[in-house]
């Protein structure tokens, strides 16, 4: 049964034991993740790209939802930390044969992994696994339903800090399908925790949560209004299946209203950066001229993703080791 109202991500000393959501983490901890990632980000430029931090450790990717890209960056991050990696793509195997998630978990636990990286289509799945995992196992959320995708949010924060330095004066606009986006939820929490001046969400009512304001954002329906004087523009992916559910009339109208072009970007600050968590639909969320343009930092996001994931993995493993393998 779920434990109530308690932050299971932290141990008694306030150190990170799981990384499930940004919610409940304080600014110091987020900054520590970014600082740790900073050191790892220097690695790709060096002849030996690995550090021995997690040598002999087993990290298991538990992907109940397909994602080659995210899984690969986690795998690369684990390998740069010298850990051994097991990959399980479970969407097509066990659970479809009637095995419960808990049974799957117990089976994989028997392989003595120290860390699970979990992706699942249901909100709360990473919490559930963290609550039920053996005491010495850390859980990192690689995306659960519409709930959270905290490592993606932290790599976005890392990218923003690289370009802007201080978070406090920033105005950030998040544009598109916030309703279905775990990335947006985690970004909003991270930006507010790091103390930005304003977070805006921009989109039609069908793609914004009914109680969006409770996330600590200003709601805009007009892109030009929403982009005015912002320092950072984050475009969200619009999944093709959204066209089927009467959420939007057409891709074309969406692009007309919310697609980012260089012209529309003019109302933002001159040095505004443009981000996208990928994979991107060119001509739907964003014109190619912007995606490939000078303001775009989309490809940097991808490479920073490895450093941030290394940081989170090593911090969680450190907490585990400090506790003598038991948390």
């Amino acid at each position: 049964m779920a434990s109530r109202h308690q932050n299971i991500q932290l141990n008694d000393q306030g150190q990170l034991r799981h990384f499930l959501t940004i919610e409940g983490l304080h600014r110091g901890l987020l900054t520590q993740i970014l600082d740790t990632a900073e050191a790892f980000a220097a690695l790709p430029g060096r002849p030996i790209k690995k550090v021995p931090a997690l040598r002999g450790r087993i990290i298991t990717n538990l992907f109940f939802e397909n994602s080659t890209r995210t899984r690969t960056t986690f795998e690369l991050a684990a390998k740069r930390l010298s850990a051994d990696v097991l990959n399980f793509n479970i969407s097509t195997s066990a659970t479809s044969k009637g095995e419960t998630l808990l049974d799957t978990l117990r089976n994989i636990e028997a392989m003595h992994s120290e860390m699970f990286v979990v992706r699942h289509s249901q909100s709360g799945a990473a919490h559930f696994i963290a609550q039920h995992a053996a005491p010495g196992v850390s859980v990192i959320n690689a995306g659960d339903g519409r709930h959270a995708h905290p490592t993606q949010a932290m790599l976005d924060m890392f990218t923003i800090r690289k370009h802007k330095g201080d978070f406090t004066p920033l105005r950030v606009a998040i544009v598109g399908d916030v309703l279905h986006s775990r990335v947006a939820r985690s970004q909003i929490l991270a930006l507010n925790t790091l103390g930005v001046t304003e977070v805006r969400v921009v989109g039609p009512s069908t793609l914004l949560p009914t109680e969006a304001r409770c996330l600590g954002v200003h709601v805009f329906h007009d892109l030009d209004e929403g982009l005015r004087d912002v320092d950072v523009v984050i475009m969200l992916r619009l999944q093709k299946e959204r066209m089927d559910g009467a959420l939007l009339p057409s891709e074309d109208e969406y692009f007309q209203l919310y697609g980012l072009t260089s012209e529309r970007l003019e109302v933002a600050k001159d040095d505004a950066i443009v981000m996208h968590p990928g994979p991107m639909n060119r001509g739907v969320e964003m014109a190619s001229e912007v995606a490939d343009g000078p303001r775009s930092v989309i490809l940097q996001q991808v490479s920073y993703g490895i450093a941030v994931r290394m940081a989170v993995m090593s911090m969680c493993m450190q907490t585990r080791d400090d506790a003598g393998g038991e948390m």
Partner: protein
Amino acid sequence: MTISIINGRLIDPANQIDEALDLHIDGTSIFAIGKAPEGFHADEIIDASGSIVCPGLVDMAANLREPGFTAKGTLASETAAAAKGGITTLICTPNTDPVIDSPTVIEWIHRKARKLAQARVLVAAALTQNLEGSQLAEMSALKKAGCVALSNSDQPLANTLVERRALEYASTFEMTVFLRPEDRHLHAGGCVHEGATATRLGLPGIPSAAESVAVARDLALAEHTGAQIHFRSLSTATSARMLREAQASKLPVSADVAAHQLHLTEMDVEGFDSRCHVSPPLRTLADRDALRQAVADGTIAAICSDHQPHEPDAKDAPFPGTEAGISGLETLLALTLKLVDEGLLDLSDAIARVTCGPADLLNLPHGRLNAGSAADICIFKADSYWTLDAEQMVSEGHNTPFDNWEFTGQVTHTLFNGKLVYQA
């Protein structure tokens, strides 16, 4: 066998009694109230000093799981749980396997419950065949077999035309139809209230409008057909307001609310607590308060358990993948009395909502202490506190968010048909 229950405070809302009175039982029925009649000799005396003696509770909606889902509960386990909760009359829902859509299943349940003799099990039979929402059930035959209402459980009807026909046909036989108002399109696969918590946790939401749209539709059809309808388990302030207005315009419409809806809100889902996964979902504080108000002013005349026992696995998964429902028989009285503690109702009105309130809605003779009527009695301590331990529940389902809650009103004795079926 004769029994006298002495020294208790007798509360019988149906007869507006609230005073220190003894109660005497002869065989299966109540023999007299007050002084023992001349020549009455009690074989057994129950001393109810410091306790309240009231009619055994009547529960409008309990999923008893048998036949078909005996891993979740059986008639034996759940009627024993009812006895512990002071409940002597249960109206079971038709969503069993096989569905209660034929006289055979009704008779099977009646016979089995009679044999168990822990509580009276009455049946709300299926409104449509196999609860599939399209073909009407054989209502006349079901009525003859003894069902007390018709219900499509939580399954939707195919369309408004089927609903119209079902209400018309049911009204031919003057049968009450239970409706669980929910527009399945607006429900859209949600699992929690579409509000602040759903937004933060990224859980698919069910808007309040999913209920109010259905209430509006059902009221329009009730008005059109003249059928007697009863809304099961309302959850929103808007529904309560619409119900009040409909009653003011003399529509024959009633409603109940699940006891947990009067105490929990969407915020209790925090931390993905699957024990709070219920249908209809827990809504806002404003909704909860409006429901409480509707209970207080009698717009909602019945509080029910909406009992849904589950095996542990049903709740052991990521929140959206868990089954909805709370095992509620053993907390129905406690949650109702909590409203008295919180100053919303006086004790007599609170008891009415779980005794004569529901009984009157279905014209049942139960939930009252009349001489000659069945001796269904609940005795509970009003003033001492007790703590719920989910592990110790009698129900097969230990799925409750009220584990470790402190309550008043611990049941000490339950008598059903003059027989002691539970004693603490």
